[in-house]
């Protein structure tokens, strides 16, 4: 198109700009989650994540070291230190010792405290508290500082969400559980579907066309219909709620798409090759294993990605067939729903948890996008 004479350049710019705007609009929400997951509680509550990349004026509540660290020096009791963590480049502009007047002092000023001691805070956060009597109390003095803090990111949230033993809502276990659900639920339907797809594509038998049509029909049957009948069935045959049930359910619900996709692909394989194999003496089983399966790799990969994303991201089936009251078998999506209830405002935890759960699909997505696109193109009913 660009080679056509007289194409207006203003239009070309409009195309570039509108597409860029669209991409930004689509990326912005996810970027927000990603950035938030690397910020501390304080940073999150003091401003939008879009400010996080530039230095920001923040109102901080800091605390000096506890009185137990005081040193007596010539009858003067001194507590010294820095209000910030090591390596911080925050610059304090004003500060105070009471929440009612957080801007009472400038850096270098000396502020009197209630117990008679005084405290001096420098702009880099160095402080010195001294008194002629021993300083008492269990905790350090609170300092309210307004500081210009450079962008700062932390991995603490991830540590807390994934590995913290004390955290009852740990995503670590849920992550493993999700993996446990996903892998068998991806592999088994592929195998079952591949055989069926081969029969529907390359074997002659009465009723074949009818079966294909039935599978196209089942493609759109809402799985909502299956919840109660199957849960009842699982309970009756003794599977109950558990991994086996959820694997079976995912297999059943994934099959129509798997068969449909694989059959469409296999039908497109050259007839000659299959007939040649037949002349070469291969049985149907051998043709399937040695010819069809290797040649169908792209379609198998496509479906595997679909099924993986679908089972990994699923909430409903896990809720119904897997997660019981013990919470031992909870999956990540369920865990996030829980957190939305109990930690609605703690965005650093929510964002981190959500990102942990979407990270794997995103990696799969970017690594195997080619197959995903190919599968989508083959899988949408024509």
């Amino acid at each position, binding site marked *: 198109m660009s080679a056509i004479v007289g194409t207006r350049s203003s239009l070309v710019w409009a195309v570039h700009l509108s597409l860029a705007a669209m991409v930004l609009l689509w990326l912005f929400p996810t970027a927000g989650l990603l950035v938030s997951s690397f910020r501390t509680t304080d940073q999150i509550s003091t401003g939008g994540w879009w400010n996080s990349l530039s230095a920001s004026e923040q109102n901080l509540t800091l605390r000096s070291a506890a009185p137990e660290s005081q040193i007596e020096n010539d009858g003067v009791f001194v507590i010294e230190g820095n209000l910030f963590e090591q390596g911080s480049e925050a610059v304090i502009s004003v500060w105070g010792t009471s929440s009612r007047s957080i801007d009472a002092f400038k850096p270098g000023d000396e502020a009197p405290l209630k117990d008679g001691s005084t405290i001096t805070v420098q702009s880099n956060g160095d402080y010195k508290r001294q008194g002629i009597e021993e300083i008492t109390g269990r905790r350090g003095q609170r300092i309210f500082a307004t500081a210009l803090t450079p962008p700062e990111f932390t991995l603490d949230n991830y540590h807390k969400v994934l590995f913290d033993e004390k955290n009852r809502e740990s995503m670590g276990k849920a992550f493993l559980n999700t993996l*446990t659900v996903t892998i068998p639920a991806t592999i088994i339907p592929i195998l079952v579907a591949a055989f*069926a797809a081969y029969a529907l594509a390359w074997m002659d038998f009465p009723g074949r066309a009818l079966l294909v049509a039935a599978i196209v029909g089942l493609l759109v049957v809402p799985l909502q219909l299956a919840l*109660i009948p199957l849960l009842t069935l699982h309970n009756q045959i003794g599977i109950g709620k558990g991994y086996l049930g959820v694997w079976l359910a995912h297999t059943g619900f994934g099959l129509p798409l798997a068969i449909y996709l694989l059959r469409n692909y296999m039908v497109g394989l050259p007839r000659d090759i299959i007939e040649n194999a037949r002349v070469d003496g291969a049985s149907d089983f051998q043709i399937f294993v040695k010819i069809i399966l290797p040649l169908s790799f792209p379609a198998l990969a496509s479906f595997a990605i679909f099924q993986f994303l679908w089972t990994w991201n699923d909430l409903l089936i896990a809720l119904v067939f897997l997660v019981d009251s013990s919470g031992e078998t909870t999956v990540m999506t369920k865990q996030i729903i829980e957190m939305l209830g109990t930690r609605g405002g703690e965005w650093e935890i929510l964002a981190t948890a959500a990102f942990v759960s979407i990270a794997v699909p995103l990696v799969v997505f970017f690594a195997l996008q080619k197959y995903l696109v190919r599968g989508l193109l083959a899988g949408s009913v024509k």
Partner: protein
Amino acid sequence: MHPAFQAVLTIAVGVGGCVGYFYFSNQLLDRVLFPDKGIHAGRNITRANIIRPWLFLFPALAALGLYLAYPVFETLRLSLSERLPGNKSQYVGFDNYQQMFSEPKFWEALTNNMLWLLVVPALSTAFGLLAAQLSDRVRWGNIAKSFIFMPMAISFVGAAVIWKLVYDTRPIDQEQIGVVNAVYLFFGGDQPITWLTQIPANSFLLMIVLVWIQTGFAMVILSAALRGVPEETIEAAIIDGANPFQVFFKIKVPQIKNTIVVVWTTITIVVLKVFDIVFAMTNGQWETQVLANYMYDKLFRAQDWGVGSASAMIIMLLVSPILVWNVYNARKEMQ
């Protein structure tokens, strides 16, 4: 590591079982039942070939029958019966449906679902078409597509968290961390708004989440279709004096009409089943109920299987036209 071990075992048993089943059933057929040797070799081979397809199909058909076909009928039965203590049930005719139709929540869910059905496929397809057309004309189009397509990989629950952050509301004296409120205040809003409780805007805010996810799907399919439009027809139109918009709307779009219909119906089906987004973001409060969530409420919170099944049948009913249409097309294609 118990569940992980169990998973490995399942994969081994599942995969091994499948392969074993297929292998040994074929062996049984060819060696024992109808050996391809001896005087009846020819006849036996013919017979074995009549049975073999069903060996290949059996596991899939069993699973499909049990997990998709049977539940349709069982749900229909449940929707016409009342649950009695002791795993018994009693036929009650259309009582469940009557009860459901008398509930305002049901009508709210149905109305909302209809709105979703109008808005989400339309916007997703439109944005998808736009993205497809734009990205095919720039050199960095593939990267752009990648990013617009990305939400497809994100779970509905993940998307719900992402968008809750976007719609987040803080008290007026604090910095807003939700971008919608930040923008709203920047452009002169008096005070932050709790968007998800604003009726009827909140339903549309939920729909945006699904549009955000589905646009990538529409874009990928439509982009492939646009590339399939013969270059000559476009060049002919340019020589005929059509401007870029005319080329797009009068030459390209009509040629990909069928694909647009496919995209539209596919998204329609997704919309009819939408559950997670509403469940995670509002749980149907503030008049955002949809059928799938209503059904979940009835089945698992109210433990009312009758009405729950009845609402599931409504979803099935809404899907049926598409089901019939797809089957009709598939049959046409097979001939």
